[in-house]
């Protein structure tokens, strides 16, 4: 070594490398390196170190840093070396700084000047070295310092310099596109450079530019095609051949660029067909690089506008790849197949066997790639095979990261394509058993919900069969040692809910099992909590059924333990259990009804049952509650006025209505703003806010509204600084209703606005919707390319056939399945729920105003209003009911709707009124749909099992 160039190295360095190579342990190596660092530190700072010595020290430093040790003390010396006049020392200096420093390092500023000087050097080698450093070290701020020289160098006589200058410019573009945006045309110019190397270099920046903005480069398609043609026809100098392939790297880059330019562009693609076909034929499939080009051709073909002949060639190439003995080629084949099946799904069939072979392969990379392909290929006909395979593989691997991913994919596929409930539950069991701690807790919740709700069929026996099979499988699985916590939670819940439902197992058997679980996993409090609750349910069902409850001794001891538990949650549950056992059958039945997990729990979020208490307190002189949002905001009043103006001018109909409130607002402003300066900040933002609210809400102008407004403001005025709109609550029952409505609207003022706009646009929307439906139909029913989508479409269409159900969750399932459809707007909702409601909403407003004093109608109208917001708001998660507070608008939705839920009569009224008003309604059974709509929202269930987006967070 060293023989060729005589790169100077000393004996010391040799010894260092040797001793490190012979080091027996990491500790020994570290010791050697640390002593080396000490030596270097001393030597390097000695004055008058000869240059060549210095050069060696720096190289040794680089080596030390590569081994993972800190060499920062030498950075400054490397920087100094770049200033040197001799090329060799300079080179070493530049090499070291490019390895040591990043573009934001403080020392860079010391190098910029040198780089500037070197870029002007006569010696092209110096320029090249400086350009190397430019690529690595110049950051956004220093770009302007060297940019002029780089541009000059683009026309340098030496091709090596031009090439590097282009790369430098490209790096600038990557770091800060705006800094070189005016120079981008240089890349186009250099594409015509007479040196193929320089031309090849420009392809890199052009590829990036085209990725970002395809359309401005469509004109280059012809040029790229002709360049590719020339390259493929071996018009380039022989030196560019590589393994008998003409300039393969250039070909690959060009094919990548063509793939971008031809994507979805028939005209551009047609220009490419001939040359791509030529390359398919000419490619030498015996060499590695030949296959690289072939693979790139396949990628190109699968990206551009499809051409049957080329697709055929691509399919041929893929089958050659897959049949090859080389794992690399198989890997590429699988990857290419994944691309091509997007266009022609049928080719996957020919290669089934080859794909299965790859699954058996010892190569892990290949296996994973194949699973990725299978994941893309899954449809309802092959889901069982694929998921089974995936689970087997999941069990076999140790890498938790990948295990998580594959588990979530299994769950996703199972949820999407499950052929039967039985299979689904079994699959989920397997996933939980082997990767339970890795899957998202939501998956478990979904499973529980699925078992509770069934599959949405009307067939109750099927559902109960599903449950008993689940119970049976769980009792069996409990025999296994060491189950994941999440899975145990599911098991406990299902056993508690359905363990005794079919009468096959006695309560004491199930409770015994549950106690076993709680004991065996005594360090898992969540599981214990689930187990206690399950016990409580079992006992409650027993009591309700009139049977004697006989607590097992182990259960007793468990309870004693929990009653004294450090966990307050466990304690609470244990006390609850104790209390439940002491109650009589009737009471138990009402607090723990059997099979009621799907029933709605009414939560009165407005806490209306406290109204009496509040009133009492206020009468006694207590301060009323002011919502937080209205407490601190020193809202700009003129802003509100502006908004009022805006509102008024944009909607001619409301113009009159706004006159009054505006005046009142103005009248009130001076005191209000005055007060604000007098440090009474709390209440007055309420006035503008309120006046604003009242102006927007009773949108269709009515005298009643404005008089009411006046009245109320007066009331407020009297109770200066204290009262908000709440005092009016105390006047009478009916008005309180009204104010509640008003508040609702204010809180959701955004939605209110958007709603009004929506009503105005309603006609337009109705016009659009057929178009959307068409799109949906083409995505679902048409000769769609992806099975997955069509399969979900099929699924979603199925449950919609039976529309009204007494069982709320089922309709929620519908919504969920609809949500999966690729079109954002669920087609079913479009069909009956939404448009009709939209069109009725504005016309219903007068009803509201006229009959505002009648309680039930107010409810109806508000309900309708809310259903109109349905398009905008999403219903909250069922679990979210417990954990998170849904924000803003749906908050109120659920309030009022829950108030409504138990009065089918009002619902009926609502339905009929809408029928009368909405004559242009499309759906025949509008009433049903409305009811269903309300039910769905009332349930507040989000997209459940069928939603593919659910696992986004899992997949990362």
């Amino acid at each position, binding site marked *: *070594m*060293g*023989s*060729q*160039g*005589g*790169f*100077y*190295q*000393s*004996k010391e*360095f*040799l010894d260092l*490398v*040797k001793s490190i*190579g012979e080091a027996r342990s990491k500790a020994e190596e570290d010791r050697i390196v640390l002593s080396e660092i000490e030596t270097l530190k001393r030597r390097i700072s000695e004055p008058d170190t000869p240059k060549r010595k210095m050069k060696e020290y720096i*190289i040794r430093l680089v080596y030390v840093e*590569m081994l*993972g040790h*800190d060499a920062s003390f030498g950075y400054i010396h490397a920087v100094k070396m770049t200033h040197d006049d*001799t*090329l*060799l020392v300079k*080179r070493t200096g530049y*090499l070291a700084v490019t390895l040591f420093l990043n*573009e934001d390092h403080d020392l860079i500023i010391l190098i910029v000047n040198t780089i500037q000087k070197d870029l002007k050097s006569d010696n092209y*080698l110096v320029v090249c070295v400086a350009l*190397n450093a430019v690529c690595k070290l110049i950051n956004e701020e220093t770009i302007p310092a060297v940019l002029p020289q780089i541009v000059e160098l683009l026309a340098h006589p030496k091709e090596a310099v031009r*090439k*590097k200058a282009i*790369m430098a410019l*490209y*790096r600038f573009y990557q770091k800060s596109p705006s800094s070189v945006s005016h120079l981008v045309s240089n890349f186009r110019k250099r594409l015509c450079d007479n040196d193929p*190397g320089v031309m090849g270099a420009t392809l*890199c920046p052009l*590829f990036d530019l085209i*990725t970002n903005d395809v359309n401005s480069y469509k004109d280059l398609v012809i040029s790229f095609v002709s360049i590719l043609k020339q390259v493929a026809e071996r018009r380039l100098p022989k*030196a*560019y051949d*590589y393994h008998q392939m003409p300039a*393969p*790297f250039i070909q*690959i880059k060009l094919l*990548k660029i063509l793939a971008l330019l031809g994507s979805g562009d028939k005209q551009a693609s047609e220009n490419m067909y001939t040359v791509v076909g030529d390359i398919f034929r000419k490619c030498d499939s015996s060499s590695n690089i030949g296959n*690289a080009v072939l*693979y*790139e051709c396949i990628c190109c073909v699968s990206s551009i506008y499809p051409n049957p002949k080329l697709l055929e060639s691509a399919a041929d190439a893929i089958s050659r790849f897959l049949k090859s003995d*080389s*794992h*690399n080629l198989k*890997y*590429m084949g699988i990857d290419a197949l994944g691309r091509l099946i997007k266009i022609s799904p049928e080719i996957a069939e020919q290669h089934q066997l080859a794909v299965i072979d790859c699954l058996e392969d*010892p*190569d*892990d*990379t*290949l296996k*994973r790639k194949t699973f990725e392909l299978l994941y893309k290929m899954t449809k309802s006909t092959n889901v069982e095979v694929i998921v089974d395979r995936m689970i087997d593989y999941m069990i076999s691997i140790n890498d938790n*990261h*990948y295990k998580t991913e594959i588990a979530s994919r299994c769950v996703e596929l199972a949820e999407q394509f499950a052929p039967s409930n039985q299979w689904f539950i079994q699959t989920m069991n397997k996933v939980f058993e082997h990767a339970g701690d890795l899957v998202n807790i939501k998956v478990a919740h979904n499973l529980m919900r699925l078992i509770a709700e069934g599959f949405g069929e009307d067939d109750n026996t099927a559902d109960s069969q599903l449950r008993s099979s689940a119970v049976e499988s769980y009792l069996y699985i409990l025999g296994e040692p060491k189950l994941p916590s999440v899975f145990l939670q599911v098991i406990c819940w299902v056993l508690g809910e359905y363990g005794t439902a079919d009468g096959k197992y006695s309560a004491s058997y199930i409770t015994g099992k549950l106690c076993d679980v709680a004991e065996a996993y005594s360090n898992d409090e969540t599981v214990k909590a689930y187990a206690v609750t399950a016990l409580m349910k079992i006992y409650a069902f027993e009591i309700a059924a009139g049977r004697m409850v006989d607590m097992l001794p182990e259960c007793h001891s468990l309870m004693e333990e929990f009653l004294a538990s450090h966990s307050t949650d466990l304690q609470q549950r244990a006390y609850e259990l104790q209390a439940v056992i002491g109650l009589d059958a009737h009471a138990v039945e009402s607090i723990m009804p059997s099979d009621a997990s799907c029933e709605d729990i009414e939560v009165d979020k407005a806490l209306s049952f406290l109204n009496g208490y509040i009133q009492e307190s206020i009468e006694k002189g207590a301060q009323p509650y002011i919502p937080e949002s209205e407490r601190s905001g020193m809202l700009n009043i003129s802003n509100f006025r502006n908004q009022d103006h805006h509102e008024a001018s944009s909607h001619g109909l409301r113009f009159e209505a706004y006159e009054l409130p505006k005046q009142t607002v103005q009248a009130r402003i001076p005191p209000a703003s005055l007060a604000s300066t007098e440090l009474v900040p709390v209440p007055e933002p309420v006035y503008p806010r309120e006046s604003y609210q009242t102006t927007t809400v009773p949108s269709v102008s009515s005298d009643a509204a404005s008089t009411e407004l006046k009245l109320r403001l007066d009331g407020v005025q009297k109770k200066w600084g204290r009262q908000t709109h709440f005092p009016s609550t105390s006047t009478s029952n009916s008005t309180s209703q009204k104010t509640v409505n008003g508040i609702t609207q204010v809180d959701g003022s955004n939605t209110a606005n958007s709603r009004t706009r929506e009503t105005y646009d309603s006609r337009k929307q109705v016009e659009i919707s057929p178009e959307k439906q068409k799109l949906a139909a083409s995505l679902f029913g048409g000769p769609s390319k992806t099975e997955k989508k069509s399969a979900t479409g099929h699924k979603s269409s199925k449950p919609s056939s039976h529309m009204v159900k007494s069982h709320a969750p089922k309709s929620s399932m519908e919504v969920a399945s609809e949500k999966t459809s690729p079109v954002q707007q669920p087609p079913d909702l479009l069909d009956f729920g939404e448009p009709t409601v939209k069109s009725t909403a504005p016309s219903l407003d007068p009803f509201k105003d006229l009959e505002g004093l009648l309680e039930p109608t107010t409810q109806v109208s508000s309900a309708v209003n809310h259903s109109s917001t349905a398009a905008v708001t999403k219903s909250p998660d069922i679990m979210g009911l417990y954990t998170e507070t849904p924000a803003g608008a749906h908050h109120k939705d659920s309030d009022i709707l829950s108030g409504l839920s138990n009065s089918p009569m009002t619902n009926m009224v609502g339905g009929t009124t809408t029928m009368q008003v909405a004559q242009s309604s499309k759906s025949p059974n509008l009433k049903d749909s409305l009811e269903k709509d309300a039910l769905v929202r009332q349930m507040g269930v989000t997209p459940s099992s069928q939603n593919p987006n659910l696992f986004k967070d899992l997949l990362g």
Partner: protein
Amino acid sequence: MIKAVMVMNTQGKPRLAKFFDYLPVEKQQELIRRVFGVLCSRPENVSNFIEAELVRLQDSRLVYNHFATLYFVVVFDSSENELAMLDLIQLLGQQTLERCFKNVCELDIVFNYSKIHTILDEIILGGQVLETRSTEIMRAVEEISKLEAATNAISFIPKSASSWLSR
């Protein structure tokens, strides 16, 4: 673009590491360790690709090849072709280094650190493959070597490192 080129021996000791996107030294070390961990668990006669997830990299792919006692690893993103990268290793490892050092061995790389960096700089610039003609690469290297020879009269190194430190 190509993100990094790494050379390590079969014991996992890094012999060369060039990162085209800046990574702090600790991160570099971590990556090298992870890559080696994956490499040494791979059986013989399998593909030359590694899933980037295994080494906790985002949006990356890895290709490696094995020459004598050395692993050559290239890390790159989706805008490069895997097979082409494999050929790049071939180009670097077999053709160019063989030409430079006749019979390339581990120590050649350590001792000719700066030379190898020069070669790499010729082939890859700013993360893009710029030159694949090995004659051209050699010419550039020799030009620099000539300069070196002119400034350094003496070489302290024995003719062949591999002769006295065979591995």
